[in-house]
């Protein structure tokens, strides 16, 4: 067996264990949704005086990408991966980077098709935020529950993130693409997520105690 075929076989095994075929199908579905939603605004219930908020679709369309990117780190072999050497940790970082880049490319392109370049930039920024939160969620509750914190954050931002005219300082997903502060915050959240992924030995979620990641 040559080194190249060996390498591909290794990638195939990793992809199978992490259900990457299903994740790809999820990416495709999320891309279709992003294309359809690209030019639309969502009207959702909110706490402001009108009782609803109108938000760009790019506040919501990165959510499935983020949940898939972070959730795909969960593997069928998770119980054996708990005791893996540093090789797995490096592979997971590469996996996350590739998943994030692919998601950014798909989401950005899909939003550009029916939306605007600014909207695409906002979508990518929101993707960074949600991926960071999904990684933190994976560490807190286990990787198969990577969706909990991003969805919670979405609810929080949607309902309380705007006074009806202006976004609140912490509702970065509502800010326009040229808000430097929102990009700094997105970078910080993503950094926090990546730190949560790599900083502790794999295999132990913080809550509930002892659950496998």
């Amino acid at each position: 067996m040559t080194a190249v075929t060996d390498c591909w076989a290794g990638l195939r095994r990793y992809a199978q264990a992490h259900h990457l075929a299903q994740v790809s199908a999820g990416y495709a579905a999320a891309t279709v949704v992003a294309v359809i939603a690209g030019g639309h605004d969502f009207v959702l219930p909110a706490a402001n005086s009108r009782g609803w908020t109108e938000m760009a679709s790019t506040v919501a369309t990165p959510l499935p990408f983020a949940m898939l990117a972070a959730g795909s780190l969960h593997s069928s072999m998770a119980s054996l991966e708990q005791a893996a050497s540093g090789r797995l940790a490096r592979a997971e970082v590469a996996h996350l980077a590739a998943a994030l880049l692919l998601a950014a490319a798909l989401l950005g392109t899909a939003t550009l098709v029916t939306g605007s370049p600014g909207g695409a930039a906002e979508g990518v920024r929101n993707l960074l935020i949600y991926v960071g939160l999904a990684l933190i969620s994976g560490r807190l509750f286990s990787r198969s529950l990577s969706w909990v914190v991003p969805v919670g954050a979405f609810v929080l931002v949607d309902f309380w993130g705007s006074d009806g005219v202006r976004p609140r300082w912490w509702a970065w997903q509502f800010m326009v693409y040229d808000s430097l502060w929102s990009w700094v915050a997105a970078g910080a959240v993503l950094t926090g997520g990546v730190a949560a992924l790599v900083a502790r030995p794999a295999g132990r979620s913080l809550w509930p105690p002892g659950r496998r990641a």
Partner: protein
Amino acid sequence: MRFGVFWTEVRRSPLRWWLPVLMALDVAMLVGRDTAWIGVWPQASAAAQLPAYFFGLVLGGGAAWVAGRVHRAGLTEQLAASTRARWRVELPLLASTVFYGLAAFVPGAVLAAVVSTPEAGPGFLWPSYLALGVCLVVLSAATGHLAGKLWESRFVPPIAVAVCLFGQTMLRPFRFYVLSGHPQVEVSPAALAVRVAFVLLIAGFALAIPPRAAGGGQWARRGAGVAGAAGLVAVAMAGPVQVERPAPASALCSDGTPQVCVWPENRKYLPVVSAMATRFSSLPNGVLTVPPAFYEKGLRSAAHPEAGGDFQFLAGELSVPMFMASTVLSRTLPDCEVPGGAEERYSQQVFTLDAYLQVRGLGDARALGAGGGPPGVDLREIARVLGLPDNAQAEWVAERLAAIRGISGDCRD
């Protein structure tokens, strides 16, 4: 015995850890938002219904977890070999999830009723809105339960529930929630009935369809898919969730002049709106032409020539001065035509007068909203004028009117 199984499922459901979060979310979404709904029964009912939309996500995820846990624990075969029908075995599981959903939903409804009672007067929460909320609770739980049976993963089902809930925001005909409950509208009985039927259908599928892990059952799943799609079509065909209500036989009207008439459900606003009307009419020297009565939207036939200017409570009473000022201005300056090239000067004068009237009507600058009024309006000037005696204010208004008539010479007096 059956209730024994139900309580066992309630005790071991993972949602027991989430119940405080759900209840807190429910209450926070009620009291942590604009409180204009308090004291108006249909608005309070709609407000109580709304949190179900959000905690449906957690509920659906929990339902999927509970349903999937059976199969992850390797009990699929045991269930398949049970002497009881599948739906009877699964009913306590789904019922326990619905129980937690309702346990989170009910406190919000009770709170809405308690805080509304002192201001709202006769009446109570509208059952149709609460039924919508319960529909959403059951739909989330059933969708999650079904997804948990179809995908053993703990990851996919919540996404399915999220798509189900967020998809509604994009596809209006499929919505199971309303954003507000103005008295002018009500839940369409037909739309509600179809939604209830659809939810029962999905709950039935969630109970009866064999899980994928058990093998077989492809035809049952395909049949359910077709029936579910047909159900969705029926939901869309049933029309919008809210339809217009006929005007009440007798509106609730003030005794003063000008008279103010509101929908009976909006009785809490009558004193404050009457005071606004009085402030419009109290400018001396008859500088403004105030109508003999102000009506809330929907009380008069839409065919009435002045019905277009009837006021609405869009964010409590804050929106009312805007409608009243507009009505007063259109009566005071009827049929103005602006000559070409003078639009900007004309608009600035009208906007200034309009802003003055709104602030005078409400009694403070909140009438102009968070944006601070129309562009080009000097709010400090308006604040100065409002500090003057009524005679001086009337003079200022007369000057503005004269300026407007000067620009648009064919305005009638």
